[in-house]
């Protein structure tokens, strides 16, 4: 029996603002964190438990907001025991001096109103040392059962206002859930919130499944399945949970699929007589085009965000290296230049970096480089790290880390593009091959 968890459909309505008090104040440096390679002291913030009017999810929502922010490594919560002020009225003026005294740079207040199966969550963000709110207060309404998503929306707003980056907490990840011993591993497709909550299974464990990939709209996934006995690409529509085989071509194996940004083309690898090349297929017309033609292994294609180019890996030089070619195919230009083997290139949704797996000296690394191969930076290192996927804002990467030995197992990890905030993503069992979906509406 399999549960299919469908993505929630959300419509966002912006309503007229509610006027409130508090005059803007000036200060030299606005509250702002810039995500770069420099040393960053996490920004201390206070977040008193959101006020609750009916219902019992206010504490849980506050906890998720705090966990989202702290998980970035950019924010550090001040222990509530240190708070001088208590917030007992969401609309009362803020006692800035009390928050300055404990060095809270940011203050987050919130209020949760629950009526039956509906909740309304309002929050305000304050720049304490400027004696001023940072942006407008906002209110999110939805089903009580969606309280985690609403909490992520609140945290996304706070993250974006302070970092200037696009949000990413309210997003989902498809991955391969693993069970059983190493020599009899069971694998099934699963989907979860970015933080590991709300897991649902998309396939049962009867066939090996590998490397799912999200469409940019988040409505479909591509993956490789051994359902027929041979590895074949399948496309699943998440709303129905139904899947179909793609590209039934002459050859033994299709794998490594990836959607184009517009979702209409799939680039993938096709193996024929032992040789693997990259092809593309139009989902609307079914037309197939061969993009590479070499006796070497060409695989793991990934489109640039504008759809004009494809990064891929090839061992034509003797070992795996990363190349970029036009989306219509061609020889490609090698961009990776360091020691070791480079593989699984994935173009950032922002277009500024390509994430990759590197093997060198018996270890695996996740790294990023500019799209011309410059500024290579390794973010992680272990016995086996592989398969990066980008958060929708292009500032965080999730990947698979596998531990060695007979009892070794795979786990999902997350790291930001400066190499900070490396942490495991909690999943119930072993997990691999994450693919991060878009920000939910």
């Amino acid at each position, binding site marked *: 029996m*399999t549960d299919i968890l469908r993505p929630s459909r959300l419509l966002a309505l912006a309503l007229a603002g509610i006027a409130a008090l508090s005059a803007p104040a000036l200060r030299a440096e606005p509250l702002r964190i810039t995500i770069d390679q420099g040393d960053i002291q996490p920004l201390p913030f206070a977040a008193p438990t959101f006020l609750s009017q009916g219902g019992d999810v206010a504490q849980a929502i506050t906890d998720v907001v705090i966990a989202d922010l702290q998980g970035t490594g950019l924010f550090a919560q001040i222990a509530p025991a240190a708070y001088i002020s208590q917030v007992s009225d969401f609309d009362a003026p803020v006692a800035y001096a009390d928050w300055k005294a404990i060095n809270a740079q940011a203050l987050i207040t919130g209020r949760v109103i629950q009526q039956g199966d509906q909740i309304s969550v309002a929050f305000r963000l304050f720049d304490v040392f400027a004696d001023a709110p940072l942006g407008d207060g906002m209110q999110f*309404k939805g089903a009580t059962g969606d309280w985690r998503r609403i909490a992520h929306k609140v945290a996304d707003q706070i993250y974006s206002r302070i970092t200037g980056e696009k949000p990413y907490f309210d997003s989902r990840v498809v991955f391969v859930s693993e069970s059983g011993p190493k020599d009899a591993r069971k694998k099934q497709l699963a989907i979860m919130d970015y933080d590991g909550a709300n897991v649902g299974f998309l396939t*049962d464990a009867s066939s090996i499944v590998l490397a799912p990939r999200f469409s940019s709209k988040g409505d479909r996934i591509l993956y490789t399945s051994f359902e027929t006995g*041979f590895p074949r690409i399948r496309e699943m529509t998440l709303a129905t949970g139904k899947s179909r085989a793609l590209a039934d071509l002459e050859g033994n194996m299709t794998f490594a699929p990836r959607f184009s940004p517009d979702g209409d083309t799939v680039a993938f690898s096709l*193996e024929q007589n*032992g040789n693997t090349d990259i092809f593309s297929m139009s989902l609307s017309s079914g037309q197939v085009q061969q993009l590479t033609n070499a006796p070497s292994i060409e695989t793991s294609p990934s489109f640039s965000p504008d759809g004009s180019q494809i990064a891929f890996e090839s061992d034509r030089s003797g070992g795996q290296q990363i190349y970029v070619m036009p989306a219509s195919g061609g020889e490609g230009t090698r961009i990776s230049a360091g020691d070791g083997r480079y593989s699984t290139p994935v173009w950032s949704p922002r277009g500024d970096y390509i994430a990759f797996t590197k093997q060198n000296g018996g270890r695996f690394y996740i790294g990023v480089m500019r799209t011309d191969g410059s500024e290579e930076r390794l973010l992680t290192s272990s016995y086996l790290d592989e398969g990066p996927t980008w958060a929708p804002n292009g500032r965080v990467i999730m990947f698979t880390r596998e531990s060695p030995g007979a009892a070794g197992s795979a786990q999902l990890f997350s790291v930001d593009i400066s190499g900070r905030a490396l942490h495991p993503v909690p999943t119930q069992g072993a997990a691999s091959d994450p693919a991060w979906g878009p920000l939910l509406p």
Partner: protein
Amino acid sequence: MQKISTIVLFVAALATAACNNPNRNGMGGAGGAGGMGGAGAIGSASDPNSPAYFSQTLGDMVHFVVDQSTLTPEAQAILTKQAAWLVQHPNYTAIVQGHADEQGTREYNLALGARRAESAKQFLIANGVSGTRLKTISYGKEQPIALCSDESCFQQNRRAKTALQLGGGV
């Protein structure tokens, strides 16, 4: 001015649908059927006409150097015997299963396993086995048989296994 704007979330009911996966093992269609499970019971390893003789006495597995699909002299010797047996037993077909060790990325290892399976298949063809009786499949690094994480296990996992199937047409 401090404004509050409101965003309303309408959430569709979560629906469930039966999984449309057939109740089939991952190795089912090709790999499993090609395994020694049923066929091995036909005869013992001392019966030269038995699949058990093929797998155990001749050896159904060949091994490869790291990141290579070139056949070593040892591999060629085993495949030569496999080919002779297959020529003498035309009622069997075979699926050559290619595998890689865990020291590689998942998709590359699928391609590498395919290369290894093809390399073994071509050697069998060159030694008289009709190509129509042979198929290949790659499992990449998905099905290790030795579980430690050092070379003693890796070398066992870098393999191509010739799995017999009774009957024509693979």
